[in-house]
């Protein structure tokens, strides 16, 4: 007989007469006992499961470091190379009340972090003081290794630019709060703030480097004040490279000086000088229908009212249209301007985009400085790039229009840019072809020889303008430029290089003109681009300048009625 039964029997015997109710009560007690035992068993099993059976790998609680979701989207170049990204950094703060030996700790921190004034911070009242924000992993480790209670870290996010100075002007930078302040960071601030897919630019960082490297070398060689340049895909309007020198470190934009922060490529307006002859000549050919046989009397300076227009290295003879171009005759161009007329020139320049802001996805695109009112003398000077100041972007756009068979592309810095600007034909294909011939002729026979590279057809135009100073133009302060197009038989890219105030050296025989300073930059960049982009030389390329030699005569015998004067 079991113990329980015996016990039951004894109780029943003791409490005789009340067997039934005792039995019921006993049963109820058993049920309650069982349930309680069962519940405790459940808890025991669960505890065993949690502590022994599952044996957690990671602590359940938060480790203390908050893992934030990624807030701002990356910026990459056309090949996916990272230009801007957001990373987590550790920022160090202190609770001075928990630090005993403040002087010792302050000295340790100053040694590790390279900052000063930590002792003053630790002497402050209060329970929170920043010591340094944005520590490097090495600094983080070293401070952590001190083991000082009262020092703690907070995880923050910070914008990083792996390409550094190379893309500082184009990509821009953000504020401490993560708002874009310049460049693409500012232009696409709303899109970037939403996170998600990276913003892809049209820029190729390799071409950007090639352009920056060449410009910096020339700035050094010619002791120039500054330089700027750009590369544009003529057919699509994509800006492949955009450089402004001096540049700055985007991680410390607040400490950069004004000159370094100034984006000369997108925001600087300059009188471009003879590069404008590309546009005025195209205007003349399109407007008058004249060909290469047209001649211009450049034997004497041209007088217009109280102004006198001279040639630099004057030929002092009758020049054909190609000769005006390759000898960069101001007189010849001014005569073309006179023949075009003010209204026609203004309209043509406006169609090329030279009279208004460039429609492009870059912040604060400035308006060109144009003569107001536009007088006859302005027509003459505008024909050779004086009296009208534009940005380098304007020059690239206008050149791309001419080289792109007369169709104006829409410029864009970022891929997939939505624009209302429709590609429109500005000049006829035949005029565009003639201009390509002249561009090539200028490189083979004219001032652009230093831009020529073997195996590729490069065309281009030099420009050297004097900068305006007190009392007129200063001969010693030049803006030297070269606008190149290649391959000129089937143009794909336009390359512009400008040096601000270059000074002649021995190699250039003292000259600081565009042909000596800027043209070599374009040649170097094009040579690099052929390797970077895998552009093979075209052995079957047509000779654009075939037959043009008959227009390059020393003395052209013609009747006075046939030439412009």
């Amino acid at each position, binding site marked *: 007989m079991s113990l329980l039964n015996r016990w039951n029997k004894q109780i029943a015997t003791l409490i005789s007469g009340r067997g039934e109710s005792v039995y019921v009560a006993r049963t109820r007690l058993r049920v309650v006992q069982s349930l309680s035992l069962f519940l405790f068993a459940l808890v025991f099993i669960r505890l065993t499961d949690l502590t022994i059976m599952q044996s957690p790998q990671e602590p359940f609680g938060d480790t203390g470091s908050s893992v934030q979701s990624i807030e701002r989207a990356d910026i990459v170049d056309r090949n996916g190379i990272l230009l801007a990204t957001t990373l987590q950094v550790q920022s160090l703060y202190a609770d001075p009340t928990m630090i005993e030996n403040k002087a010792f700790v302050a000295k340790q921190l100053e040694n590790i972090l390279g900052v000063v004034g930590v002792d003053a911070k630790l002497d402050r009242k209060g329970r929170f003081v920043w010591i340094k924000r944005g520590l490097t992993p090495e600094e983080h480790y070293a401070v952590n290794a001190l083991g000082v209670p009262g020092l703690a870290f907070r995880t923050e996010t910070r914008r990083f630019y*792996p390409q550094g100075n190379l893309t500082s002007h184009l990509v821009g930078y953000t504020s401490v709060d993560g708002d874009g302040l310049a460049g693409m960071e500012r232009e696409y601030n709303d899109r970037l703030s939403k996170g998600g897919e990276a913003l892809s630019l049209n820029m190729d960082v390799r071409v950007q480097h090639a352009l920056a490297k060449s410009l*910096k070398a020339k700035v050094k060689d010619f002791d120039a004040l500054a330089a700027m340049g750009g590369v544009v895909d003529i057919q699509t309007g994509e800006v492949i490279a955009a450089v402004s020198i001096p540049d700055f470190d985007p991680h410390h934009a607040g400490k950069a000086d004004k000159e370094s922060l100034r984006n000369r490529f997108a925001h600087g307006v300059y009188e471009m000088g003879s590069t404008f002859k590309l546009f005025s000549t195209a205007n003349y050919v399109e407007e008058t229908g004249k060909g290469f046989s047209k001649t211009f009397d450049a034997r004497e300076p041209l007088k217009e009212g109280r102004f006198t227009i001279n040639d630099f290295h004057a030929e002092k003879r009758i020049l054909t249209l190609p000769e005006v171009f390759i000898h960069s005759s101001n007189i010849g161009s001014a005569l073309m301007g006179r023949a075009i007329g003010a209204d026609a020139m203004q309209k043509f320049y406006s169609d090329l985009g030279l009279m208004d802001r460039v429609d492009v996805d870059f912040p604060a695109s400035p308006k060109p400085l144009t003569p107001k009112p536009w007088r006859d003398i302005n027509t003459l000077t505008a024909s050779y790039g004086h009296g009208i100041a534009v940005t380098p972007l304007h020059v690239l756009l206008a050149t791309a229009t001419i080289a792109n068979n007369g169709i104006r592309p829409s410029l864009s810095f970022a891929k997939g840019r939505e624009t209302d600007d429709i590609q429109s034909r500005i000049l006829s294909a035949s005029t565009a072809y003639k201009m390509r011939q002249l561009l090539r002729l200028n490189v083979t026979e004219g001032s652009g020889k230093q831009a020529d590279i073997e195996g590729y057809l490069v065309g281009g135009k030099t420009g050297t303008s004097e900068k305006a100073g007190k009392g007129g133009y200063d001969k010693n302060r030049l803006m030297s430029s070269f606008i190149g197009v290649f391959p000129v038989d089937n143009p794909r890219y336009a390359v512009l290089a400008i040096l601000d105030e270059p000074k002649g050296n021995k190699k250039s025989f003292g000259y600081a003109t565009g042909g000596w300073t800027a043209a070599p930059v374009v040649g170097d960049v094009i040579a690099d681009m052929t390797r970077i982009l895998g552009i093979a030389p075209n052995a079957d390329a047509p000779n654009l300048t075939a037959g043009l030699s008959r227009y390059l005569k020393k003395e052209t015998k013609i009747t006075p009625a046939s030439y412009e004067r």
Partner: protein
Amino acid sequence: MRFVRDNKLLCFLIFAVVVASVGLTLVSQRVYDAQRSVQKAGRDVVRVEWDIRSLKAELAYLTRPDRLDRISSNFVQSIAPAAGGYDMPASTVSFSSSLSSLPEAISPASFDAPLPNKKPVKSKPILANKKSSFDDLLNGIGGRE
């Protein structure tokens, strides 16, 4: 047992309650565990995403065109042609002054031919720029010269 016999429905109900409560407890614990796992996985994903971003940024920094330019020019300068008995490494870069001196282009059909097995030549170590490091990037140092 008499109690069970006399109160079959009640016992069945008690049994059902016990079974249901055990089941619900187990299920709720499993769901709770699963939720914690999902949350933990989510945190891990975000953490790993940050790590990947750091690595990508470091890769972009280390493969900057100016840095590669510097390293490649150091490497090319370190390879000097020696007199007699010296096998030039297959990776030697030679610069020609004109296109005409370059060999003719290989036609694509010849790419199918197997390349001869050459004994690998030990090349000299690349002279790394010791000043450049990702920490320099975080310090704002190491920009373009």
